[in-house]
């Protein structure tokens, strides 16, 4: 079977869609270098660099989408959305409703996210909960190359704004670009299954809002997205040796949430442990608990999230981001309750 790296799969799905649909164009800061393989195939009219003007070019993506294009706007990192949030918060997300369902903005915002390589709290945030909080935005967080390509394909077929978050620990080309290519003295805890894996020969859009069960188990359900899925899987494998049978649900889509799969998974084990690299308060982890409570499924609950601003120091960072040890320990406590 064909295998690809994570970002390679995204670019491959993007290329396939660009080949079929001339309305798709890709732009963002340093895109001519970052997406050079797309540039030499589709040319500089469809693969463009931008000035460091996020509010202008992200807002332009919304306008271009409204007027018939299908732009893929790249942000250097999701953190930099802070500079340009108006385009998403007040425009892209509102258009469908404001127009009485007559107008949408099919813009895809592709942004690297996440930590684990020592860049500190202004460059390593996840922010999917923050984005999913806003009605009208689709938020995708793939964990494997196959999902990354399939969800990019889905994003390009979706009729509204989509935020596509590409975790930097899975994205070999991004870590390499950020300087790891200049030295071999630093190691990152890259989940191998997520960084490279099997992909289909032809990309088909994955359903948006459909979770996937990565591992079946009876005692406890771990739910996560992105790199957290791989941390959860590793924790589940270790817990098995302690006699704890753990299932792992990969949401893949934060918004819209697959409430049905979530409910079924939690109903089966009666225990939900959320692993979320995004901030703990007012975010995905609390939302999952609320969803289950609303359905009325009896369950026990715990979460392993990022509780504070991500510290620069690597040792502190490792403790702050959800790690396998924290997941194991939370799982044990949950089973003793």
């Amino acid at each position, binding site marked *: 079977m064909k295998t690809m790296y994570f970002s390679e799969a995204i670019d491959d799905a993007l*290329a396939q869609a*660009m*080949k*079929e649909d001339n309305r798709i164009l890709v732009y963002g*800061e*340093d895109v*001519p*270098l970052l997406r*050079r*393989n*797309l*540039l*030499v*195939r*589709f*040319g*500089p*009219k*469809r*693969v463009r*660099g*931008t*000035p*460091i*003007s*996020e*509010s*202008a070019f992200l807002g332009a993506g919304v306008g271009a989408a409204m007027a018939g294009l299908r732009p893929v706007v790249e942000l250097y990192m999701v*953190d*930099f959305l*802070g*500079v340009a949030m108006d385009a998403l918060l007040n425009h892209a997300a509102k258009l469908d409703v404001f127009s009485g369902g007559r107008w949408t903005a099919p813009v895809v915002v592709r942004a690297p996210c996440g930590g684990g*390589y*020592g*860049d*500190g*709290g*202004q*460059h390593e945030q996840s922010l999917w909960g923050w984005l999913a909080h806003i009605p009208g935005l689709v938020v995708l967080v793939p964990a494997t190359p196959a999902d990354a390509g399939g969800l990019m394909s889905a994003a390009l077929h979706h009729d509204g704004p989509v935020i596509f978050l590409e975790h930097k620990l899975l994205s070999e080309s991004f870590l*390499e*670009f*950020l*300087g*790891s*290519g*200049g*030295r071999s*003295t*630093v190691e990152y805890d890259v989940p191998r299954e997520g960084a490279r894996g099997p992909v289909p020969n032809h990309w088909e859009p994955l359903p948006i809002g459909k979770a996937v069960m990565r591992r079946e188990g009876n005692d406890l359900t771990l739910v996560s997205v992105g790199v957290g899925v791989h941390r959860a899987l590793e924790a589940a494998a270790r817990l098995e040796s302690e006699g704890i049978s753990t299932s792992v649900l990969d949401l893949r889509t934060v918004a819209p949430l697959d409430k049905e799969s979530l409910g079924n998974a939690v109903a089966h084990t009666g225990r939900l442990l959320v692993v979320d690299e995004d901030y703990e308060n007012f975010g995905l982890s609390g939302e999952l608990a609320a969803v289950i409570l609303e359905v009325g499924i009896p369950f026990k609950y715990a979460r392993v999230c990022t509780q504070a*601003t991500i*510290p*620069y*120091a*690597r*040792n*502190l960072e490792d403790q702050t981001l959800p790690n396998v040890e924290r997941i194991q320990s939370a799982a044990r406590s949950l089973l003793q309750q």
Partner: protein
Amino acid sequence: MDVWSLYELMKKSRQFEEAVTQLWKDGLISGEMHLGTGEEAIMAGVVSHLRSGDAMAVDHRGSAAFLMRGVDPVLLLKEMLGQEDGLCGGQGGHMHLLSKKHLAASSGIVGAEGPMVIGFALAAQTLRPGTVAVAFFGEGALNQGMLMESINLAAAWNLPVLFVCKDDDWAITTKPGTSTRGDMGDRVRGLGVSYVEVSGLDVEQVWKVAHQAIARARAGKGPTFLRARCVHFEGHFLGLLLLRLTRNPLREVPAIVGPLLRSFLLPGGGSLRERLAGVRLVLSTILSTLRDPRRTSSNDPVLRARAGLLSDPERLNGLDNRIQAETSAVVTSALHEVSV
């Protein structure tokens, strides 16, 4: 103006950043690393005018500004090493250096220096008349709306601000010619702010121009925008792909050429003409890097300043040796904590 002390500031900064480079290569400093090697004359020429109560809004290359402002180099290096007793408790790292005592704040968000310096200057105008606020940024930041808005606000409120643009003719890997139109001076003057250009390689020139601009701001006569051209010897950050390509072509070029060629030849996509235009764009970025003046003595502000002091070789060598010894002591002191 004391050229000896200006040279000392520059040389200390250079040696410090060379030590940082080695520690980064050794893997003791994590994440990205944006150096200011090449912009020392700009930093020394401006920062040497600052005194108690003055404020600085600094970009993601903060080492030189902080060192020259008098921040303890051991604290600074410990911060970069991520130690608990670093300048910011190991929480901030090199892009987020902060010193409340010095009213000095850096940020990893391009252009964020603009609004920050406006706030610092408003506080200066209100609470500490006679003090000033300085912002440092690159020319890429000038396309960031918040910086342009801030330049206007500085003029509208007649704030004691010095905007310092360290222009290295690169916005990360983008040449301004492909992303910017118009003239920087026209743009700044159009917003009602006084605009001055100076060679960022010549510390004495920078010092003189900054002296006037800062005196003007202290006297309540409003903001000045200073554009100083320079070369960043290590590019946007350490390990920059473009520099790796030009420095290690045998190792780096094949890795990118294969995928490029495969993609270029794939059926479906642009016309041959469009594809060739894409190839030209990739090549021109690499060629621009090759043509960039790198580490030649005429573009090195530290060497240039040193050349002006050769008339007193004894004093000069003594100074160089002292700075070298001090930098080694800083590294030893900071690393000592690592091994404990």
